Every structure is written in C-alpha cells, then in structure tokens.
C-alpha cells in the first residue's frame, strides 16, 4: 500500500465514521405549525393525531431516534384505539414519523448542512478515490492477489461487519426512515437543485446508489484496464445509472412530469402496472402515453430481440441498475457465490418462482384496474400486491440482494430472485446467438473462471470438456474470460445452432479416432 492509499483509507474511514456520527447531530422539536402542516400530515389525520402528539409539543428531543420513536408511538396510540374498537378502516397507514421528524429537525445539521456533507460523504469520496487511483501503478493484468486472505473479501470479520451494516441500512431505509432523517437532510440541497423539492429517503438512496456505482466504477476501470470489454461495460453501467436512473427522473419531476426511469422494465419494475402509475402516465398527455408504450415495448420487443442478438448481458451487465451496483460496488465480492449443484437447483426454483409470482400479481392488479373489483374469488388483489412489494421488492431485492453481497456474492438477487433475469434467461437459454466458447483443449481446470463467476456457474465444468457455456443465468460480465490464465474462454455471438451443447467425444489436440455411435 502506498502512502497516498493509506491516507485515502484513513480519510474514507473518517468520512464514514463522521457520516454515522451525523445521525446523532441536532435536536428535534415539535411545533404546532409542523403538526398542522397539511403537506406533512393529511388534514383528516391531523385531527386524530393532535391529541396524542400534544405532550410532545415544545419538548426538545436530542436525537432523531427518540423523536421518531415518540411520534411513531403517538400515531400507534391512535391506531390502537381504532383497532380496539374494530374500526379498521380508520387506521392510519401513512408513515408520518419520517416527514415530521425531518421537519422538526433543527441545529447543527440544518444550519451547517454543506459542511457536514463534505465532512462525511465528501471526505469518503475523496478517500476512496485516493485509495483507488494509485492502483494505476501496478502493471495491467488480473490482480486478484490476497482476495481469499483478506477479511473483507473472504467472508471474514470485515465482510460480516459490512454485511451487517448493509442489512441494517436497508431495514432502516424501508421500515424506519425517520432514524436517518439527518442523512436525508445532508442531500436536501442536491435534491432542491435537481427537482426543486426537498429530499426523501428515496432520493438519498438513489444518490448513494449512483455514487457507489460511479466511485466503484472508477475502480473497475482501473482494475481491468487491460480489458476494453470490462472498461466499456463499466462506463455503460455508470452512464445508465447516473443519467437514466438518477438525473432524468429527477428532472422530469422538476418539469412536473411523472417520475420515470426509461431503462427500468417490468417485471423488475414490478409497480409499472399499478393503478397509480398507469393513471399518472395516462394523465400526462403524449409524454405519458409514450412512457406507457415504451415501457411495454421494452419487455415485449427489446428483450426478445436484443437477447437473441447479444444474450441477456445487453441488459444485466450493461444497463440494469441492480446489475450496475453488482458489477461495481459488488465486484470485490463476486467470488463468494455458491457454485454447488445444490445452489443451482435452488436457484432454478426461486428465480422462476418469483417470475411466476410477478406475473400472477400483475394479472391481479390489471384485473382490478379494468374491472374495479378488488377480489378474484377469495383473494384480494391489494394483499397480493403488497405481499409482493414487501417480500420481493423490499426484503429480497434490497435486504437480501445487497445486504448479502459480502456473504453470498454480488448477484444474490439477480441469480435467485430477479423475475426479469429469469425472463431474459429463458430467451438466452433457448433462442440466442450468445454463448461462451471454449478454446479447443487448452483448459487446465484451474478453477479461476468458476471461482470468479458471480452467478455461481461452474464454468470450468464446461471448459474442461470443450463444451460451450450456455446457461440461462449467465449475465455475460466476461470476468471468466478475463481471469482465465490460458485464454480459454470467449464471449461470442453467432448462429444459435452453432452452439456446442454436447461435449465433443474427443477434444481438439487428440487425434485418437472417434467411435461412431451405434
């Protein structure tokens, strides 16, 4: 490690620590103005909450935690009464704890927002880049030294710590956003500059997500600077994330248009056909209609056509946001995926199971949209929809999908859960020009390809037999080809019928006569 890298690592750690510390900054005080602000609390709910929140008025809470908990408690108190009286339709489901806590925050974090931003996130970015850039000194080539010796990349204590942090982050983000209002306040100025309004927890998430892809994308470009394929692919995911997923939707909001990510696609974008989304698009004139048609064309036309030509990689490892995070932030953990046959069996059930679930859920939602009936038989379409959102949308794709990076590899979601990946995979497996070819008899079975396959494909099992790798799950990241020390693997597109699906009886380099099958 160079001196610059050591300083970088120190700065990054300091920035990260300060970022955690910012959560405890400032105080929260509830004022009558906040409570009666109808942009925060619906008028009908204000009347209900006012009494139980009254004891909080004017009191100074030293942290967002205590304030958030107290306010959540006040709302729960109201709800408990309704539940006791079995007036379930009156129960308040809106999360008021987050906006109220944010509005009630005062002190260091609101007064010196920019300063704290640069001391935390800013310092971490500078530190990370200082750590990454000196790697340019190393000669170009595969540099995987000590990956299985390092506690962060081999499921050691640092990996477990990192995984725990990521899991906690997602739990708080999805279910207790009031705890991280200070982080949201830090990015308020950026949000105002982009969309004209204050930041929500989702803005914070999008900002951090893009930041991780950008910074770790720079790392990818430097790490694989001997490989133009890896560099161009990294630039591609960085571009699609910052523009399509982050900036364009925010600008659309600023222009009073629907929030729309033009590269996100059903069924990954599972709420595309939800009533509020359809209504929003249909009430937005030509642009809204274009969004609707575009969104449908993506999965009806683009998936079969592009997957036929290039394999699913055109989306999964070049465009997709989940793929983008996996290929950048997740790259240091790609070797932790499970390559066993058992894992492959589980994967086939879960990923296709989620695809079926997504299709059924969407069918329910559309049935309700067109008929106005919320029930099909005994099943309520809203509960199917919210079950999908909770179990798949939040827990699987977020908490498990990213939280388990340092434990199960960087593609847990893509491999075991993504319904779009399942759909793309079916096209790739059965009708695509894409395959990974193996170079004659040159494989030495070393295992680098399988080890570094983020999707847990046992690449070596094919390469050592001289068989092409044609697998539904392959996202075409090309790392197997990059780490192969003998130049055996290559990602290629050609006539689908030219794929070598059965291992040759005798491999190239052996002139032993072939025995014809009787």
């Amino acid at each position, binding site marked *: 490690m160079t001196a610059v890298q050591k300083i970088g690592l120190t700065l990054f750690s300091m920035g990260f620590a300060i970022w955690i510390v910012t959560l405890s900054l400032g105080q929260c005080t509830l004022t009558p103005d906040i409570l009666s602000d109808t942009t925060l609390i619906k008028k009908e709910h204000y009347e209900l909450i006012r009494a139980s929140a009254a004891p909080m008025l004017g009191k100074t809470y030293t942290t967002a935690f205590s304030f958030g908990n107290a306010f959540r408690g006040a709302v729960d108190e109201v709800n408990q009464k309704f539940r006791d009286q079995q007036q379930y339709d009156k129960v308040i489901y809106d999360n008021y704890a987050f906006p109220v806590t944010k509005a009630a925050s005062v002190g260091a974090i609101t007064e010196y927002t920019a300063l704290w931003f640069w001391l935390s996130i800013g310092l971490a970015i500078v530190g990370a880049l200082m750590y990454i850039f000196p790697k340019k000194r190393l000669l170009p080539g595969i540099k995987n030294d000590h990956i*299985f010796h390092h506690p962060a990349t081999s499921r050691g204590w640092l990996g477990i710590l990192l995984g725990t942090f990521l899991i906690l982050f997602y739990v708080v983000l999805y279910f207790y956003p009031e705890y991280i209002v200070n982080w949201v306040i830090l990015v308020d100025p950026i949000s105002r500059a982009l969309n004209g309004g204050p930041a929500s927890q989702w803005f914070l998430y999008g900002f951090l997500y893009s930041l991780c892809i950008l910074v770790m994308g720079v790392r990818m470009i430097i790490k694989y600077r001997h490989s133009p394929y890896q560099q161009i692919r990294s630039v591609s995911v960085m571009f699609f994330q910052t523009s399509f997923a982050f900036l364009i939707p925010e600008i659309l909001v600023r222009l009073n248009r629907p929030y729309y990510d033009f590269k996100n696609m059903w069924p990954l974008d599972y709420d595309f056909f939800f009533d509020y989304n359809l209504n929003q698009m249909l009430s937005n004139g030509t642009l809204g209609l274009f969004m609707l048609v575009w969104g449908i064309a993506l999965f009806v036309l683009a998936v079969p056509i592009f997957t036929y030509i290039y394999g699913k990689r055109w989306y999964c490892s070049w465009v997709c946001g989940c793929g983008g995070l996996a290929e950048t932030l997740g790259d240091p953990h790609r070797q932790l995926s499970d390559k*066993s046959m058992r894992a492959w069996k589980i994967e086939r059930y879960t990923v296709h199971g989620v695809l079926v679930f997504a299709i059924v859920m969407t069918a329910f939602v559309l049935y309700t949209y067109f008929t106005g009936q919320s029930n099909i038989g005994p099943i309520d379409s809203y509960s199917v929809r919210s079950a999908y959102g909770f179990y798949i949308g939040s827990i699987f794709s977020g908490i498990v999908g990213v939280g388990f990076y340092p434990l199960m590899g960087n593609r847990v979601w893509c491999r075991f859960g993504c319904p779009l990946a399942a759909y793309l995979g079916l096209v790739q497996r059965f009708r695509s020009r894409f395959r990974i070819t193996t170079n*004659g*008899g040159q494989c030495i079975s070393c*295992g680098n390809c399988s080890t570094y396959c983020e999707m847990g494909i046992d690449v070596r099992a094919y390469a050592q037999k001289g068989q092409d790798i044609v697998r539904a799950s392959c996202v075409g990241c090309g790392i197997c080809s990059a780490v192969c020390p003998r130049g055996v693997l290559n*990602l290629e597109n050609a006539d689908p019928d030219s794929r070598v699906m059965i291992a040759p009886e005798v491999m190239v380099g052996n002139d*032993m006569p072939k025995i014809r099958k009787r």
Partner: protein
Amino acid sequence: MKHVVILGNGISGITAARYIRKYSDYRITVISAETEHFFSRTALMYIYMGHMKYEHTKPYEDYFWEKNRIELRHAWVQAFDFANKTLTLTEQGTDVPGTLTYDILILGVGSVSNRFGWPGQDLEGVQGLYNYQDLEAMEANSEGVERAVIVGGGLIGIEMAEMLRTRDIAVTMLVREKEFWDAVLQVEEAKMIGRHIREHGVDLRLVTELEEITAQGERVGGVVMKNGEKLDCQFVGLTVGVSPNIEQFRDTELETEKGILVNRFLETNLPDVYAIGDCVQHREPPEGRKPVEQIWYTGRIMGETVARSICQAKTQYQPGVFFNSAKFFDIEYQTYGQVPAQVPAGFQTFYWEHAEGRIALRINYRSGNEAVTGINAFGMRLRHEVCEKWIKGKKSVGYMLSHLRDAHFDPEFFKRHEKAIVRAFNKTHHDHTIRLGGRPAFWEKVFG
C-alpha cells in the same frame, strides 16, 4: 467385473477413471497419497496468492466420486506384487498395511522435482514446487522471508517468482542460460519475457549458476554462485525441472529408464499394467515429440487413450498437433506445433512484436512450400482449432496471415493486431503482398 486400479489422482489418472466409467461398468479404484480428492495442480500458485482456496481447485464436487462409483483411497502404496496383481498399501492416518488386488493397473504417478546434488539442497527452506505438500511447505518456508532465490528459469520458476512477489518478498532468479527459458523460446521472445520479469521487480540474473546453498543453523542462510558472488536469503526455490517419479519401481520387474517405458499403446512391459502422464517414457514417441513430455494436456490425452484401450478397442496414443500454454506474470502464452529455440535448417521464421513489448506473434514455416509448422502467441489469444487446422493442413504462411482473423480469440473490443502483423510481414518479405481477408469486426471499423 474387472477391477481397474489407478495409482495417482492427477489429471491423467482421473481422466482415465472418468472415461473408463463412461465406457464401462468396471470397478474403479483411485489411490493417491497426495490429497483425498483430485485438484488442479496447475492452480497451486493461485492458492498461495489468495486468488482461490484449495476447494476451488477441485474440478468436481465431492459427491461426484461416489455418484460415479469411483472409489478413492487416500493411501500410500508400499509394495508392488505384479506377478500376483497385488498392491500393499497403507491408508492415510493408519499404519496397518492392507492389500488390494487388481485386474488392470494404471500408473499415473507423476514427477518429482529435480535436485542436482548441490551442497545444502536439503536444508530447511529449500524446496521445489510440484504437489500439494510443496505448497504447504512453501506457505511455512516463506513466512517472514525477506529475500528468496529461485534457481532455474522455467515455467515453475517464474510461477514461484510471481507467488513470492505477491508477499512482497524480494526475489532473485538464477538462470544458467543466456536468456530466460531460451532452451524453448527463441531469443526475441525470451528477451521480452525477461524484460517483463524484471518489470515485476524480480532480480533476474542470466548466465548465473548456483554453486552451493549455505546454512544458517538448520535453515538456508544464503547462496553462493559459481562466479563467487554470495547472496543472503531465507528461501531457495529449486525449479530446475522435474523427472518421472520412478524411485518406487527400482527393484521391481517394471522396466524403467528415465521414466516408465511404454509402447504406443501405453502398455508397460508387464501384462495389464499401463502407465500414463508425467511418469511415462515413450519407447517410440509420436513424430516430432519427446520421449518424456511432462505437460498437463498430454497427461489428459493419455488418460483418454488408455480408457479407450481398456474398455473398447486397443488404441494408440496419438496426440494431435502439439500445443501448450502458460502465463508469465501478465503475459499469456500459447504455442501450437513446433517452435524450437533454434530455427532448423530448411525453415524460416517470422516474428512480430507490439511496440509496448508485451504482445508478440512468431510463425515458423518451411522454406520451400512455406507450410506453417509452428506458432507462438504472447499476450494475444488464438483459436486452438484454427491453428491446428493450419498446421495439419500444411497451409502456407501467406494463407495463414491472410486468414489471421479466423484465429482471433481475444475478447470483444480488444485492440486487433492483424493489420499490423500483415503489414510487418509484407514489409520484410518483398516477394509477398499478403492481403488480410475476412470481415473486420464492427469495432475495428469504428476505431481501426
């Protein structure tokens, strides 16, 4: 049902076992003293460097063996009774010898590292690198080492240098020859690899021979070179080649010389005893091949062949066009056909090297009909099938160069060198005007 016993679980023995299972229902037993399961010995370096763990180097999951009814015995064979087709062996972890009878015995016992009787060669901290035990020894021996000396400039020597460099150990390589590996490589390639070794911070000393290894207590303390120069070091890697592992057969009826002698059918002088892989010495090697060829691929091909002979029809060992590969730090190397270190009479050679000095191509061809006989590629991947077709089909150098795009195997978007290579050839061979054929890739058109 015949009982096939295979001694050695390296690539040749395991390939034989797998194919015998494919072709037959015979009982198969594989005996190894090295490890319980088959692993890729070529990947030892990656375990040391932390790219992989031992379990990643196992090409088959542990259930594979039982599922395919291949019995594994982690044991030492102590005695061979070829007359009664009986082995005496001791299971790992026990000391009671047992016996095992076979109908067919396949010997795939591999090699041992060479030691040329240097004074001090048995000191602690002096070792070769061939098997799993060597890796374990290297882990222990290189602990806390500041300087290491590697004796010998071959494929294992450079691997060892790369391994030690990842632990920030200073490495000096003593190479007897004028250039690195110049017994195999022609001088331009040898120089290029030599430069690359130095680029990686290795102190490469050419035309330098070891005189003795000096001790510091029980351990190695330094080396003395033939020119009298001394160097302190705490680790010495002896990588001066390997020899067939035949010591155990010295007092048996099995005929050996440098290795276990076999005919074209891989049969030894004893009935129902075959030998394959590194330990073999061919009585009549295939045309253009050496009697002892210690290469992963030839081991695998022998395993395929012997299985065919045992289960189906008697089959000759018939390797195709020679091929091999290696990686010198960051430079990948592939070779096809015959590219000897000295161009033989009646042959010509063409060499192209990229200005950055890490990519090169060598073509050897006959003087008369210009048929290509050998290809070396560095830092550039070529398609095995196509190279084999060219050499087997005796295609001319002109044909090969005009069809160079067919052999391209680098990943997409990689810089293409076909044009530069053909241009270089035309420049130096005025009697030729070769035109590069084939369709350039889209990206080549855009950025070319």
